[in-house]
């Protein structure tokens, strides 16, 4: 009835994006862009000085985030986003560190760095976009693929038990852990804002559709099918024991804020106050 669609418009967040690279490479129906949108809004609302923000990402679909934001951003080697960010934080404790990477980068190749960054409780915010497989390289089985989930390398269904990311992070010592899907975009934005304000290793797991590989292999061929599945099969349980939030294929996804505790963190609260040793 009313046609208001106009071209050549500017998006409110264009100031913080490298618009010459848009439209981005992510598939139609992928949720990484929505997570990035929620992160940028949360970052702007948090009032952090943008000149003191460093965004680090690894390799993979989600690793591309570093190339699209107009912040100090670093695209590191595979799995090494966390040690890179740790070094940045130790060298310059004033920086606000954000690690934005995928499950294959953070939990598989960088799994050891992940548990040790959580154990040391380095003051940083980690946003882990979980799409249940290795999307960029062709949809192979990853450590977060649910049991019986089909991928291009497990055509008869996965026989391995997947990682439960919030439980892993809680066991390793993270102080803030939340999980949302891209269907809960307002809650995701709120949680990212809380994680940015939290001192210590804070993790937000964002479950995203991957229609091209994971969804297509599991009878959810479009991003819309997957996001509908997230929307109608998620259950909010704040403060639940993280060992109970494992993801099963075709099961309910428990979302919410699971852990919010206080622990001494590095650098800042200990030693000379800035973490530097001379």
């Amino acid at each position, binding site marked *: *009835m*009313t046609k*208001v669609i*106009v071209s050549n418009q500017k998006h*409110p967040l264009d100031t913080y994006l490298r618009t010459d690279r*848009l439209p981005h490479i*992510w598939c*139609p129906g992928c949720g990484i862009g929505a997570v990035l*949108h929620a992160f940028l809004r949360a970052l702007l609302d948090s009032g952090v000085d943008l000149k003191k923000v460093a965004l680090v990402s690894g390799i993979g679909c989600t690793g591309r985030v570093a190339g699209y934001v107009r912040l100090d951003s670093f695209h590191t080697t595979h799995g090494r986003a966390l040690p890179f960010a740790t070094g940045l934080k130790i060298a310059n404790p004033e920086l606000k560190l954000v690690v934005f990477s995928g499950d294959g980068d953070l939990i598989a190749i960088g799994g050891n760095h992940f548990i040790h960054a959580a154990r040391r409780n380095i003051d940083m915010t980690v946003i882990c976009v979980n799409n249940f497989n290795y999307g960029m390289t062709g949809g192979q089985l990853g450590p977060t693929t649910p049991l019986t989930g089909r991928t291009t390398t497990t055509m008869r269904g996965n026989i391995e038990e997947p990682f439960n990311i919030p439980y892993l992070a809680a066991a390793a010592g993270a102080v803030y852990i939340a999980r949302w899907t891209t269907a809960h975009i307002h809650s995701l934005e709120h949680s990212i804002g809380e994680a940015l304000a939290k001192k210590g290793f804070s993790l937000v797991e964002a479950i995203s559709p991957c229609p091209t590989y994971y969804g297509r292999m599991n009878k959810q061929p479009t991003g819309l099918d997957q*996001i509908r599945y997230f929307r109608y099969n998620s259950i909010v349980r704040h403060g639940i024991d993280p060992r109970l939030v494992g993801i099963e294929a075709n099961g309910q996804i428990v979302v919410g804020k699971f852990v919010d505790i206080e622990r001494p963190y590095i650098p800042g609260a200990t030693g000379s106050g800035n973490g530097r040793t001379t």
Partner: protein
Amino acid sequence: MTEKPKNEIKLIIERCKGCRFCVEFCPQHILYQSDEVNSKGYRIVDVADISKCDQCNTCSMVCPEFAINVVSIEAKPVKDGEVVCLSQDT
């Protein structure tokens, strides 16, 4: 009788990839996927009835492409009597 629209939904056509997240999540159900295609061949979204828009910004939030956003077109007089368009800029 239709009310005068207070908001305007703006779409950057070349960024839309036709994923229909905004159509799915709009609480007023005023968006739909039209038959028009952009230069990459994706079917872009269109607005059915803009007067129902509440400016909740959900379409903008779920859009993974940074393509759609809502601006207010309420005209308010300023000091020297001019009329300006207020847009929601962050």
